[in-house]
């Protein structure tokens, strides 16, 4: 009977089955998984405290991802609602020659056409450049208008999440940072438009084809271009950093994205120059 060889074979397989490399850390012993459990239970502050401590000891990029997601959760930003936007993201085509826009930008563009017939009115060039900046930002904003707006202290959590991810070179982490940056960009853009509405209301009261030059100069130069210069420059700077994060995740889109950012930055610098020389 072939019993002895059979017992030998069975013993051999028992030994072979046991000769294996040590398994990796089981999922339930990973502190990052425990932090995820806290997040899914709604204990974002507890998860943040745990992960801030862990980040000081554990250099894994997963820890930074988890901590950033904890801050984002406390800010109310849940990527599962928006990741489709990232997967289909396309940079807008920015043109310095033609102002195209909707809503506020379109209405201001109509005011500009009135001002074009009055070159003697100082401040009109600055206004024109400002409208171009707003038009370029609106093109970006249309790409991200499905993202949430984060207000108040939550925006600090969002900013902290972006800070946590800044040192990492992992593509997925930089893509996540880019998404958070776009949420921050959208929120800041939303703030700016509120102020812009007041300016529009002031400008629309005038028939610029008939306005007295002195009065027109007074109105245009009362516009706080400096405030909008700083605001738009900050926005374009954040946009540039965000797009750099996207290019880490999508190297093949680097040229397309950087071209769009360069155009936006150039328009912003032109506005800065026009603002400095106007209304002296």
């Amino acid at each position, binding site marked *: 009977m072939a019993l002895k060889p*059979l017992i030998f*074979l*069975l013993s051999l*397989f*028992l030994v*072979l*089955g*046991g000769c*294996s*490399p040590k*398994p*990796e850390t*089981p*999922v339930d012993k990973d502190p990052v*998984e425990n932090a*995820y*459990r806290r*997040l*899914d*239970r709604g204990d974002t502050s507890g998860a943040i405290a745990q992960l801030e401590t862990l980040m000081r000891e554990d250099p894994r990029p*997963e820890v930074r*991802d*988890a901590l*950033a*997601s*904890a801050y*984002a*959760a406390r800010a109310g*930003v*849940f*990527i*599962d609602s928006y*990741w*489709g936007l*990232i*997967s*289909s993201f396309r940079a807008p085509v920015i043109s310095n020659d033609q102002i195209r826009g909707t809503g506020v930008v379109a209405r201001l563009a109509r005011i500009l056409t009135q001002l074009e017939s009055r070159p003697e009115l100082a401040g009109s060039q600055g206004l024109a450049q400002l409208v171009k900046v707003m038009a370029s930002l609106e093109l970006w904003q249309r790409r991200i208008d499905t993202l949430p707006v984060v207000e108040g202290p939550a925006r600090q959590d969002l900013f902290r999440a972006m800070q946590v991810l800044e040192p990492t070179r*992992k*593509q*997925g*982490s*930089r*893509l*996540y940072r880019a*998404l958070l940056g776009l949420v921050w960009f959208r929120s800041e853009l939303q703030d700016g438009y509120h102020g812009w509405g007041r300016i529009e209301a002031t400008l629309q009261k005038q028939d610029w084809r008939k306005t007295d030059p002195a009065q027109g100069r007074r109105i245009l130069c009362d516009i706080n271009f400096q405030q909008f210069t700083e605001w738009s420059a900050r926005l374009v700077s954040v946009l540039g950093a965000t797009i750099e994060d996207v290019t880490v*995740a*999508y*190297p*093949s889109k680097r040229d397309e994205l950087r071209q769009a950012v360069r155009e936006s930055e150039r328009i912003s610098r032109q506005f800065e120059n026009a603002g400095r020389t106007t209304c002296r």
Partner: protein
Amino acid sequence: MSLKNLCREVLLMSIVVTIISGLMASLAHAAPSAPRSLTLGLSDSDDKALGGVCHSLDVGGQALPCNPAFIARETKPNFRAQLFAGNNISYMQDVSKLLDGEGDRENMQRLFSQTRASEMEANLEGAYRRPTFGVAFSPYRLMYYSFIRNRSLPVITLLAAQEQTLRFQFAGYAGDDWSWGLQVRGVRRTFIASTFSITDAFSEDHDDILGPRQQSAVYLEPGFLKEYPDSPWRTQFTGTLSQLGAVDRKADDFPTSPELHLGSAVRPPVSLGELELGLDLAFSSQTSHWSDPFRLGASYEIGVTKVSGSAGASEHAFGFQLRYWDMTGGLTYTSRWIKNWIGEDEWVRTVYLQFGFNI
């Protein structure tokens, strides 16, 4: 059989069980995330309806029996083929594309737009059986498991696998109503087993996390059967040692972690049809609670209809099959109780369909 011989055989079995249990404890690996019944189980209606009790009951509906010793009881040659599929079969095309390395963003979007945990299983198998020998070939078994947590930045544990399996079963009589059996099983797997965030999946260079891997495995799985044909209820005792083998590349989700099945079955006489009741005790490296090994099962066949079911500590199942000429069709429902990710009680429910024919 005399009482003395019966006691001797029970003592011998106890010693063997103790030794093997001790050996299996030393082979314990980290528990895989996907359920063991999905990664290492069989994909057919009887296995799902009866669970481990299929090692004690030979209900005859499978390509090859769970316990290879049962093939010794085969009475005539026959050929059979079956197609088996469970929940979420709509994912089959997307999973296949991922395994072929052709997954695109649309595939991943569909797979990741799911509830917290998802499973999918499908199998195509053909078999030839004759007394003391059986062979089965499954050119295509597909399984999928995903588990998502952290809504803020979804992290996914993904297991997708495609297998080809070839099984041979040999059996014989050892006298005194003892039968022995041996299954030799070869498995070739292509699989993706990875944990990553959704932004990792959507970045341009995701080959590292979604790159398919291969594993080849060979298993030697013995079984025995001890019958008491003269007893009023035709009692039988069974034992099988499954998942005993070696692989070319270790993978936590497909461990070579043996599983010992000890069981018993009876066939009480009924006025109509045929009734079988079975008990199985399954021991593996995942056994942690005293109630884990136990599973009770039953099968009742009358005419062209067969119903079967089983219940264990944390799951139960029910199956229904119809036979028409050479064709068979079945529906199986399983329900598994788990403590979910955040510690809440949850039932994972699955429905399977099977179609087959016997010649």
